């Protein structure tokens, strides 16, 4: 047991460092990509190709005074930015980055991730409530309905994959898939993949579903009053969450670390990066949907499709079991 604990601790520290680093790189990538989409160079002053810009930004955020509104609830106000980030780190525990390269080998890895993912929404609600700001409150209210709504189709699409793989263990799901793209789950479960990606955007509040922080309506939504690192934590958590959902998609649908020639972790990183890049592209090319449309997409399209997909999958898995295994 102690070895297990030490393993978890070491990997937590490693993940914290990795997430911090990756988030910095992603901020840079996002700003660069956004810049090029908008026909401008993006950051290029600090460091080579502006690589150190996110670091400078982070230092600036850390150096800023932490301000709390007059009538805010101090405990919840400071709890929220911490609470938003810590569970994100836990989400990385069951993720297999390479063959045998994971912190926690548990049979319910998928379940763990989905359970902890709910924390992000909770901390946004707490933060939004604690600020005693109406925009933040509206943002928090949007977060509630959005997270609750989008978690369901996400869960259903993940379940469909687990039915096919016959396991909730992430490493097992990866091993079930082969080296080549046509062996991956995305080929057998394309609908689940699309549903997952759309729900993931909704879950992580990324454009075009960034309603909890819809700038033109709610100024900054749930984190309106946060400054300095308070805001920085929410910001970091958004990117960390993005990596998590992209990693889960990689594990479940894109064969995880599996791939020809290159070593496993590299394949994993490559697939995650591509998905994250896709999210970045979405953000800088689409307008924002309206709140009722967001919920309509979920309840009227994603949900029925996900349910149908799950039912069909379950049916075929059973049929296959009886027809071929017996």
């Amino acid at each position, binding site marked *: 047991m102690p070895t297990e604990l030490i393993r978890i601790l070491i990997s937590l520290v490693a993940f914290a460092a990795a997430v911090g680093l990756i988030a910095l790189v992603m901020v840079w990538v996002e700003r660069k990509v*956004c810049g090029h*989409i*908008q*026909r*401008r160079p993006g950051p290029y002053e600090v460091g080579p190709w502006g690589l150190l810009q996110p670091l400078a930004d982070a230092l600036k955020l850390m150096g800023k005074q932490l301000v709390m509104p007059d*009538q805010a609830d101090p405990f919840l106000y400071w709890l929220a930015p911490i609470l938003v980030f810590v569970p994100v780190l836990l989400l990385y525990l069951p993720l297999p980055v390479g063959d045998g390269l994971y912190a926690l080998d548990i049979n319910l890895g998928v379940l763990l991730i989905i359970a902890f993912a709910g924390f992000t929404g909770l901390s946004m609600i707490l933060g939004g409530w604690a600020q*005693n700001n*109406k*925009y933040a*409150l*509206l943002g928090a*209210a949007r977060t509630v309905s959005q997270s609750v709504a989008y978690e369901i189709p996400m869960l259903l699409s993940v379940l469909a994959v687990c039915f096919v793989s016959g396991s909730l263990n992430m490493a097992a799901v990866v091993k079930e898939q082969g080296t080549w793209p046509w062996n991956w789950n995305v080929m057998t479960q394309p609908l689940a993949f699309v549903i997952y990606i759309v729900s993931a955007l909704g879950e992580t509040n990324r*454009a*075009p579903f*960034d309603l909890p922080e*819809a*700038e*033109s*309506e709610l*100024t900054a939504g749930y984190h309106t009053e946060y400054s300095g690192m308070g805001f920085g934590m929410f910001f970091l958590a958004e990117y960390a969450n993005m990596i998590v959902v992209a990693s889960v998609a990689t594990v479940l649908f894109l064969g995880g670390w599996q791939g020809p020639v290159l070593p496993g972790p590299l394949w994993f990183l490559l697939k995650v990066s591509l998905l994250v890049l896709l999210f970045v592209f979405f*953000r*800088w*090319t*689409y*307008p*924002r*949907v*309206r*709140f*009722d*449309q967001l919920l309509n997409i979920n309840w009227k399209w994603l949900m029925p499709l996900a349910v149908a997909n799950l039912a069909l999958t379950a049916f075929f898995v059973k049929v296959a079991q009886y027809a071929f295994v017996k």
Partner: protein
Amino acid sequence: MTRNADMEQVAGDFYAENFAKDASEGSLILNLGPQHPSTHGVLRVLVELDGEYVLRAEPVIGYLHRMHEKMAEVKTAAQYIPNMGRVDYGHAIAWNWAFVGAVERLAGIEVPPRAEYVRVITCELNRIASHLLWWGAYLLDLGAFTPIMYAFDDREKILDILQSPTGARLTFSYFRIGGVARDLDEDCVKAIREFIPWMRSRLPMYKEFVSDNIILRRRIEGVGVFEPDLCRRYGATGPVSRGSGLAYDVRRDEPYSVYPKLDFVVPTSDLMDARGRYDVRMEEMAQSLNIIESCLDQMPEGDTLVKGAPKPSWKVPKGETYFAVEGGRGKIGVHLVSDGGKNMYRVKLRSPSYSNLSLFAEASRGTLLADAVAILGSLDLIIPEIDR
């Protein structure tokens, strides 16, 4: 957060109290602005929300009020032209024109033909720049961050062109009583000629990538339907009324300058919603390009300022007149009354955004908050013009 708790917090502000007076039980009163990303400056809108629905909205204006009409009483006519460039930073040249045109109408000053063409060209270029500014900012309101960068790229080209004859990039005070300050030189004409095909190639791209986007269409189609009757009661003009099917354009219906000689279409839309207003503005940019092109073809040689043009100390003759031009946002009107003295007796500025915004309170009732933002953006507001 109950209503009473809100009341305590907003207490002290006259408008918030005045607004909260009629609030219904359990509603949330939200203050949008005067510093808010979607209010494009310092507009403040008080909204009463029931969840995400707007029960009531009231624009509170005056945060950028500079009392231009009082300034007119302490300036001579020529000294007042720079004020006009500052009323509406989006389409400053149209305001130049409205005031200068009123003075010319009252004093009976004939403008040389070339100057008329130069006026039309610069005014239309400025109109395209104004619409591009709206387009980018509107999509920003709707959560699309990228179009404004492209819009500003094009707008930059226009400002570069206008910079050479006017000497300004935003707050133009280019028109003079009896003409314009400087002629368009050869380089400038060449740059305009090059700009026209460039802009024509950009518009289809904007349509393909932005206007036809499904999310955008869902955000603006059927949102903010203004019946013609609503436009009439509030005096809405410009793309707002044309988007409601009212084919009214001062350039055609109260013709001034050389517009009757120019061939252009007044685009309208029967959709009456934000989409209609969007389409009208996009089409107007294409029409403005046509106008500029035919102006360049027709433009005669000659003076751009009338002989013996009024000096700064010149006095406007006694009398009154009303002169209107079509600005980027609608009808710009100047009601000028002069007692023949050094300064003008009264200048009343009719700004189109002011009338267009006044219908917002009625039009936003019962919409979603996001729709209210979409409606506000579709009015194309320039706050300094509203507040004057």
